[in-house]
Structure formats: C-alpha cells, structure tokens
C-alpha cells in the first residue's frame, strides 16, 4: 500500500508538472480510459528544428496513478525529439513510476504515454506501435 502511493507518486499527483493547455499546439491528442473515465489531453510545442519538444503540457482528470504518471512523462520527454519519444519503451516510464501495478492500473499508468505517441504520430507521422494503434481508432478524438 505505502508502496503504491509512495511519496513521489503523491507529489506528482498533488503538484502535477506541466499541467495546463497550450493553445494552437503543434501536436495534440485526447485519450480516454473507458474503464474508469480517466481523460488526458496532451499538447506539444516543438522548437525551431520542428522536431525537439520545446514545451509539453497535459490536462484532464483521473486517478492518482494516471495523473502522476502523465506528470512524470512530461518531465521525461522535455527536450527529446519526436522520433526518440516514438521509440520510448513503456518500460522506461513504468520504471520511473516505480510501483507494482495490476493489469487494470497498468492502463491508467500508460494512458498519457499512449496519447502522446498518438499526438506525435498524427503531427509527425512517427510510427505508432501495434498496442497504441487500437487506441488511436477506439478512444482518441
């Protein structure tokens, strides 16, 4: 228990990094976890090279796990290129989250990453791995 809601998770949940909206973002996508109603929208602004993430923000509502993991994701991807993020394995984010998750909660933890990959896929044509492709069709606006 104390593991699951360890201090760093609660810190990100209560003080989310990069929480907000970017108007006229270069890349944007919205995702929904229909099981629990978690909603995440991610906005990306690229730097002058049109490839490096200059600013990234998220808005939405959801459980502590989805909100905290998306907040952590914002810090992880800052300054990386769209291609790097498209190739970013989910394990990297899960390592950062650092708590054991059941299959149901895993979906919460990975929602933000999926939405970000879809946003980049749409804006930059970066590849979308099989597991997120279904998300693109079903749950993303």
């Amino acid at each position: 228990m104390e593991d699951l809601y360890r201090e760093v998770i609660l810190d990100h949940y209560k003080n989310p990094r990069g929480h907000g909206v970017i108007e006229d973002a270069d890349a944007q996508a919205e995702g929904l976890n229909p099981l629990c109603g978690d909603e995440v929208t991610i906005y990306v602004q690229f730097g002058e090279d049109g490839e490096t993430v200059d600013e990234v923000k998220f808005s939405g509502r959801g459980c502590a796990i989805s909100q905290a993991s998306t907040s952590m994701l914002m810090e992880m991807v800052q300054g990386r290129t769209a291609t790097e993020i498209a190739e970013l394995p989910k394990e990297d984010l899960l390592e950062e989250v650092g708590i054991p998750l059941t299959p149901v909660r895993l979906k919460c933890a990975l929602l933000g990453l999926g939405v970000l990959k879809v946003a980049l896929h749409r804006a930059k044509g970066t590849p979308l791995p099989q597991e997120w492709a279904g998300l693109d069709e079903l749950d993303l606006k």
Partner: protein
Amino acid sequence: MAVTARPALDAQKLRADFPIFEQKIHGKPLAYLDSAASSQKPRQVLDAIRDFYENSYANVHRGVYLLSERATEAYEGARETAREFVNAPAAREVIFTRSATESINLVAYAWGLDNLGPGDVVLVTELEHHSNFAPWQYIAKRTGAEFRLLPIDDQGELQLDALEEHDGVKVVAANLVSNSLGTVNPVTKLAAWAHERGAIMVVDAAQGAPHHRVDVQELGCDFLAFSSHKLCGPSGVGALWGRAELLEQMAPFNLGGHMIRSVKAEETTWGELPYKFEAGTMPIAEVVGFGTAMDYVTAVGVEAIADYESELAAYALERLAEVGGVLTYGPPPERRAGIVSFNVEGIHPHDVAQVLDSEGVAIRAGHHCCQPLMKRLGVAATNRASFYLYTVPDEIDRLAEGLHKTRKILG
C-alpha cells in the same frame, strides 16, 4: 390467525457456509462488499456441482442410459426450482441461458426483430445496466423503431409522470433493482402502464431476484431475466421467464442441436418450449448448481434478505456520512436495496478502491456498466459497496475506517 414474524437472518452464521471468507487478503480478513457485481458461493452449491460431476454427469435429454436419465432429472429439477422461485405458471416458460444478458438479448432479437418497426417506440429507463440498454438500442436501430429513455429524478428514482409524454410504445424495459444505485423500481406500475398501451414489459431482475421476492404473476410482466452468479450460484448460467403465448410465437434465437423437431435439407422445424430456445449443450452442471443456489436463498428467505440488506444500507449511509467529504447517490434506505454508491471528494474511485483493497475491503469502482446513468449523475465513475446475506456490519465499519485512511493519504 396469528401474525407470523419474518424469520430474522443470522449473517454471521450463514457466513460460515462460504469458504472464501476463510482466507486473508493482504494479511487481513476479507470484507467483500461487491456482491452486486457477483456473489460468493456457499459450500452447499460447490458440493452440489462436485457431486453432480462425480456421480450423475452425462449430456441431458439424449441418452437412454441411467446416467443421462439422472443428469436430465437434475437439470429439469432446476427448471422446476426456477419456476417456483419466480412463481411462474409453468416450467416450460423457464428457459436456461448463459446469463441474464443473454436472456435479454434473446427477447430483443427473437421478439424485437419480428415485432418492432418504424413508428414504434422502445422505452428504457435511465437506470439500466448496459445489458438492458444496448440490446434494445441496437434492435431499435435495426428495425427503424425509436429508442427513448425514461428519466430519473435527482434521488435516482424513475419519473413516472414522464410516461405520459410517450405514444406508440411497444416495449418497456426496466430493471427491478438498479445495480448502480440500489433503487427498487415500481415494475408493477410500469407493467400495468405498458399493457394499457399494448406494449410488452421486459424486466431485468439480475440485481432484483437475489435480494427481493420475485413473483412474475404479481409483477404482471411479460419477460423476466435473472442470473445465477449474483444469487450464490455459479457463473455462466442465467434464466429467462416469458409468457408461453409470446414465447410460442417467437422465432428461435440460437439454432443447432437439441432445439429442433426435424432437420431436412429443405426445411428445419423447431421443438417445443422450452427446448426451442436451448440450442446446443447447455452449461449442465451450472444449471444444477443454480438450482441448489435458489434452494439455498429460499431457505434463508428472500424477504429476510431484503429486510436485512435494507438495514445494512441504512447503517452504511450513516457510517459514510460520518466520514466527511463523502457524497452518496440514490434513494432513501426504505426504497433502496443493499447497494450504496458514493464518491469521496477530490479522490478518484480507483484510488479509493485501491486503498481499501490494501485493508482487505473489496468494493467496485467504475461506471458499473451504466454509462448513461453516470452521465446523468454528472460523474465519470463512482465507488459502490454492495451487500448480501453474508455481509456483517463489521465489514461496513472497516469500509468507513478505510475511507478515513484514504482521505489521509490522498486528500
């Protein structure tokens, strides 16, 4: 005549029949408050299934040998038990299915496709589980009929006044008890209203039958669906009761083995009720276990269960109010079954359920297969604690303590 007091229910004693409570969850005793999703199983049911497999198992209605006869007798015995359980006029009106969901789909397809069309209205309540919502929405679309919702008020009770706005209604579909809010619906009134207009009344009793006395003749409905797994029985089996004259007119739903009279290259004809609707090998042992489960619930007393759960609901509402920052949904305890849906201010239901799990308290968090209802309540999800004949007040105390802890960690 002497007034007979309803026999009281001794939950602590009944609890000993349920082996699941013998274990520890995260080192703590199990507080199981998710019986509305599915109930736990008493040893009597587990033993009946094992005994059936060990001593009587064979396919039913086929063999001329002793085992098949024994299996058929047990299977048909469960049908008679189901008939008695809902006070149906005849056992041939009771059809076994794979679930209450399949029971409703059977009616929606086999009755709906042939009896609905443009200009007809299908009226479903805002309280419905997706199982009594999606099939009707889909069949209405297929047939060109109009799909409409009967609204609820802010307490989660049906607005019967709104009935008068609807003409051309051919089907009214409602649950007996809402699985989300515990609302007990006035099905008798709805059925009378439907019949005055020549509509049929379809009742989803998946949540009602395990906790309230069901009498299809008193309800005055045309179809009633219920399931085994919420009623102390195994999963994978449900039942449909329907009026014989309607069932007889209906085309089959599934086709295949056992439901036929004769099969020729030119034409196939159907068997009699109830077999016309039981194609293929049914979940035989599960049907037998379902029968034992109905016997178990009847022996405890469905009315005693309803009374006891209403007391538990009142107690839970009281304890939750003491926690602070807890918003509850649904009607007052006297018009509510043993279900309490709630939200903790500022904390997502998944997080609430997760903290409670660490305390050994199992509740449901989500939309409870009622997305239209969640939208009406203006929430994405709720927490739900639900009770049954084995629930003890101590489990509700632990729920309240767990909520204090949740608020401390996440609030």
